[in-house]
């Protein structure tokens, strides 16, 4: 009866244990794994087997080969000194072969950073619909029909009651309708306006809306939260300036400016040489909004804010033209 793989392996193991020089190990390698070695012989006999046995025999021959190779390598390492190779010398300076690597879009990345920053401040991210009812987008936000304030949002309409949201503020209303205070939420999402596109105006863009409502929330809290956020988002301390502004759904309302992160406030192209970046709109929630969702404005106070994600990403990553975001050019996308 021919040697079984197991007996071959047992015999090799015994022989290797006695081989104490590299030459002896090499001799054993030739005996077992060489071109005319025991394993080659075993392989040569495979085609003679009945077809049904061939795959199994082949399989066990392969297993044997692996086991023998491992044993010999092990012993070789033990007795030291690598054997002479006949192969040409390797060139370890050949260039890298990079496994494929993809990239997350800079807008997604920026939204994640904003969501993470606000999470540390206890804000929970929620979604709202991109196609929205006029009621949530305008009416409940204290912007009645035929009011000229509507001109500030050049809106796409599907019909008289349905529109593409031009801001993420309707998200506030949807959350307040379904929950009671205390609330700390942000609503990131895609928005649409009938803007003619250029480097800084887009018919499609992204915003993050924020809302905090509780007993005793005041303007000083709003200043603190936005200052903390901007510091965290830009990774450095920034000066923050609040200036009066008007939004129908907040009062008092503010435009929030941040000292230019590019030039530190000295003036540069990014800040149009003003030293300041206009980054957010914010304010204390208007009592009419609380009444629209059934909160008692004498009991609860709160603040809301909104920021343009695309603009924040453009500043943070020094992107000169926002149209690059949606073109899909991988020479752009692979930079992030």
């Amino acid at each position, binding site marked *: 009866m021919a040697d079984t793989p197991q007996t071959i392996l047992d015999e090799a193991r015994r022989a290797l244990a006695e081989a104490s020089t590299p030459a002896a190990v090499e001799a054993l390698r030739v005996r077992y794994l060489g071109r005319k070695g025991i394993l080659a012989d075993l392989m040569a006999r495979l085609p003679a087997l009945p077809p049904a046995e061939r795959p199994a025999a082949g399989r066990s021959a392969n297993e044997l080969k692996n086991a023998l190779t491992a044993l010999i390598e092990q012993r070789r390492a033990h007795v030291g000194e690598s054997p002479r190779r006949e192969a040409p010398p390797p060139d370890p300076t050949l260039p890298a072969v990079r496994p494929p690597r*993809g990239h997350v879009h800079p807008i997604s990345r920026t939204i994640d950073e904003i969501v993470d920053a606000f999470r540390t401040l206890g804000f929970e991210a929620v979604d709202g619909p991109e196609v929205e009812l006029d009621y949530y987008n305008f009416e409940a936000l204290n912007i009645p029909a035929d009011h*000229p304030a509507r001109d500030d949002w050049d809106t*796409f309409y599907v019909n008289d009651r349905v529109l593409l949201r031009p801001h993420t503020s309707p998200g506030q209303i949807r959350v307040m309708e379904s929950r009671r205070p205390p609330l*700390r939420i942000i609503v990131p999402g895609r928005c649409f306006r009938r803007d003619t596109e250029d480097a800084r105006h887009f018919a499609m863009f992204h915003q993050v809306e924020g809302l905090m409502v509780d007993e005793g929330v005041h303007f000083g*809290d709003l200043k603190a939260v936005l200052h903390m956020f901007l510091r965290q988002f830009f990774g450095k301390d920034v000066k923050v300036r609040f200036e009066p502004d*008007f939004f*129908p759904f907040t009062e008092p309302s503010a435009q929030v400016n941040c000292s230019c992160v590019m030039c530190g406030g000295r003036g540069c192209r990014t800040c149009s040489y003003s030293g300041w970046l206009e980054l957010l709109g914010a304010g204390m929630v208007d009592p009419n909004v609380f009444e629209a969702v059934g909160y008692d404005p004498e009991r609860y106070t709160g603040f809301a804010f909104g920021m343009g994600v695309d603009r924040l990403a453009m500043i943070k990553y020094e992107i000169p033209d926002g149209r690059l975001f949606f073109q899909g050019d991988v020479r752009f996308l692979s930079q992030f």
Partner: protein
Amino acid sequence: MKASYQWLKDYCAFDLPAHELSARLSHSGLNVDTFEPRGEDWMLDVEVKSNRPDCLCHLGIAREAAAITGAPWRRPDFELIEAGPPAFEDRASVRVDAPDLCPHYTARVIAGVRVGPSPAWLQQRLEVCGIRPINNVVDATNYVMLECGQPLHAFDLARLDGAAVIVRRAAAGETITLIDGSRVELTGQECVIADRTRPVALAGVMGGLESEISDATVDVLLESARFDPRNNRRTARRHGLSSDSSYRYQRGIDPEITAWASRRACALIMELAGGQLLSGSAQLRFDTAETPEVTLRAARTRLLLGIELPTETAARILSGLGIDVLARDGRQVTVRIPSWRSDLSREIDLIEEVARIHGYDRIAETTSMPVRPSAPDPSRTAERRARLLLAGQGFTEAMTYTLIAPDPVQRAQPWSDAEPIAVRNPVTNERSHLRQTTMANLLGVKAFNAAHGTPAVDLFELGRVHLGQPDQELPREMTALAVLTDRDDGLRVLKGVLANLCDELGLQEDIEEEAGGRGPFDAEECVQFRLNGSLLGVAGVVSRAIADRLDLNTRPALMEIDLRLLTDNAHLARAYRPIPTYPATRRDLAVVVADNVRWADVRRCVEAARPDVLEAVDYLSTYRGEAIPAGHKSLALALTLRCADRTITAAEAEQARDVVLHALSDRLGARLR
């Protein structure tokens, strides 16, 4: 609104250079976008928000300047001498038939004017404000509008049939030619100024061509009136008209300035164009002049602003804004709102006034806030994991437009039979409908990159698609994940991507796969996936026709799944599963089957044969050629066999392999190669 720096100084004696005035106004809420020199003067471009129509004039801006500088504010003095007889009523008649659309109408007549150019000082002021000088009468009306915010209109009295002014609703089908030359057909909703026979002006929007002031005008009828803001806005929008008058009427004008403006404009017209003011006038008013009393509580101010602001300070700020303080004690201030501040009616409105003049920078930032834990949203977490997983596997995220043109590629989607939702007022036909798939856009990105020197790309997009639903106002917004690859064997790669995604999200259910699926695919090379019976997605190789349409040299593989269906079934928490104690053994098989036998059939057959010891069946390769009959192929597969409670013996493995082989032979006509 563009304002003249020198002009503002007529009404408020502030001592600030233009740049400093601009900065101070901006810091207190009246944002000056730019200021530019205009000869000796400066033009201030003031951004007046829709809540502050009182600042759409120089007197209003000067009032703000007075409030922030403390300098006194005054209205201009003028003298108005009426001549007479004839009296107004001898020469003209006024009737208001639509008091709901016109709560206040006044008219005066100046006889014997000499129409000609205005003096240089007036022309210069108008030009600083961006208004083209026309003639002395029209310029006077524009000047007074820019001064006090009241739009005015001058009619050539001789052109009014019957010397009559009738303020009424338009009749449907009536037409009027406006001063810009456009001809407008009226619907019947508009408020018009008419004479005895026809409309002569679209009230508060634009005057009519036929009654406008010309060089031949001798007698002028001057209108100073107030029209309903909503109706005015609808009229302007309906007919695509905009004017300085309409802009102001829509936002609301000071109801107490109308009569003053009429007198002021008449005085100015006579100063510039001569003529005599007839005695008497039309003064028709249908509403009352009440303005509200509002009380501001110190405690409420503290609650909202977080700072202590004595009622004394609040009262000083409010009266600086021209608001009458009626009463004050240590706890509250009661005021009467002036007629020009229609934006103030509630306590919160006063708190804002106090806060902005006091200065937002004097409101202290809270130094510590109570901590509140926030729960991460599982679907957001899942989406983020999906993005990172795909990027880690070589796919780059694209973001494309939600608005699309509904071409055949966009329509190739599995999700809905409804028509794509159209936007009523698109900017371009290229972006007119809401997308129902992200696959078409991703193919567009692929084509863009192919045309820009990056032929091989692996892409994904994670975004919403909008699917119309019967009986629902809002569409279903599905979070779609589309993946595109140029790699060899792309469809199998995409299935692998899906499998990895399911692993990452801890999906416990099996995904069912069947041949065929709707998408931009070759009909022979696509599949669809189901999860718990619902359509999870489709994948396939892009059809030749669509690849040609997009000028692609290759046919990429493309997949789209309903990501929310996956994430809703996700188990994001990890749990340990025991590692097998006993070793597995592997048996490889090569079987010859007919060409139409699919791997899925083979896999199902193998899995059913010996489920007790079969751990996995893996596809190895397909071979056609020598020794394989025509119409057949050889499939190589590997069986992984394991017993849970002991090491599987060689005999058991052989026996399992034989059972599998028999099953394949019985069910699929396979034979061992």
